[in-house]
């Protein structure tokens, strides 16, 4: 089967815009809200949201990156260990409203690790989840997103790839048909 484009660059931009406005609806001027992107791919969603939000609101939004490698539940269950990325949270998350951001929500295991990793930095007031793509009906854990770019029905053997202008050359979301499939 051929690869299928789920979001082209025009729809991609609209989606980012909509997510920004949904965030503003809930969090207002972001005075006690911080955005935290999950390494490695969630930080691209974060960067895009941050720059868009800053244009709309005309103020700087506090953001951080969170690496979850050491909190994963598949340590020693993979062929090769995963390369850790940097965590960059230079502020207190105590009593803050946090929006965790990732590109694809699939089994929910990454988010579970992300919550553990996040709580090592303190006790936030409230944690929400934003994901660019939600592969629904594929969860291994009872985890749902509060903000979703697009919901996708997919098979396990398929793979969803979120591509970025900065890295792959074009903003788009693809549904790929692979033999092994992954999140």
């Amino acid at each position, binding site marked *: 089967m051929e690869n299928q484009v789920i979001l082209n660059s025009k729809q991609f931009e609209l989606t980012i815009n909509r997510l920004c406005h949904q965030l503003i609806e809930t969090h207002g001027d972001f005075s006690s809200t911080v955005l935290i992107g999950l390494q490695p791919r969630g930080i691209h969603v974060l960067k895009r949201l941050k720059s868009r939000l800053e244009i709309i609101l005309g103020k700087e939004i506090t953001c951080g990156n969170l690496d979850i490698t050491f909190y994963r539940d598949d340590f020693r269950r993979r062929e*090769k260990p995963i390369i*850790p990325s*940097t*965590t960059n949270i230079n502020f207190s998350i105590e009593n803050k409203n946090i929006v965790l951001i990732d590109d694809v929500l699939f089994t929910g295991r990454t988010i579970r690790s992300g919550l*553990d990793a996040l709580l*090592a930095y*303190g006790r936030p007031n409230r944690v929400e989840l934003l994901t660019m793509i939600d592969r629904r009906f594929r969860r291994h854990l009872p985890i749902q997103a509060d903000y979703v770019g697009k919901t996708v029905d997919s098979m396990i053997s398929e793979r969803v790839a979120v591509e970025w202008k900065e890295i792959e050359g074009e903003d788009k979301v693809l549904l790929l048909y692979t033999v092994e499939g992954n999140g």
Partner: protein
Amino acid sequence: MDNLSVEHLIGIRDLTKADIDLIFSTADNFKQVINRPIKKVPSLRDITIANLFFENSTRTKLSFELAEKRLSADVINFSASGSSVSKGETLVDTVNNILSMKVDMVVMRHPNPGAAKFLSDRIGARVVNAGDGTHEHPTQALLDAFTIREKLGTVEGKKVVIVGDILHSRVALSNILCLQKLGAEVMVCGPTTLIPKHIDKLGVKVSHNLRHALEWCDVANMLRIQLERQDIKYFPSLREYSMLFGLNKEILDSLSKEIVVMHPGPINRGVEITSDVADSKQSVILQQVENGVAIRMAVIYLLAAKIERQ
């Protein structure tokens, strides 16, 4: 990311440059972890580690134990004094008894060179050498090089002099091998009797003049005189050693550039290094100790990643 090329950490000799780089980049992440409010990650919660110390240690033992606990491993400790070793039990028997309690990894310090290799050939668990006699002390060399990298940006091209009792020092051998693999130039400096014959075969420079060595280097690693390993007198008196090879403020300030001063501990203040130098801003002795935990976390994490699940 690739795995380490080794199953055990016996010595720096077995590691490739890629291994060392991998350990350093992993340690960078763990250094972040140990500077957070909650200094612990759950990665090794199904791993049990035995720390076997057949020789005295403060820093290394505490550092390993802390590293293991920060990775959430279960830890058991053993010291030779007050154990059945004094009742005539052999090393392999002692360790096999401990392993039958389902231990996945052994961290061992032992007075005999080659003890870690001997053990790794005979048991199923992973072995980390925490110092075997006068042979190697790999984690110390890794943390020393990691500290140099942190302080000077890179190890490659730097000039490092190791001063003191090279003959009896496992730190010296591991440091020489590690620094050379990372592209640094190494010199050893000390009294003729404490420099092993043919050490130049390792590709290191040799000097018997402290000032000459310090003028040459970017980093000076001052070693302790290992009196407990010296069966005969190697120099007339500690006072004379201290006058000729001790690092003091006067000589440090008279150098044309500011060098970094390191010491693996324990320090004999007033012998190989004076108090004012050990506590000066050029000294990175306490950073070495902090980095020791991060390096040991990285080594244990990467070795544990290769333990197969049953």
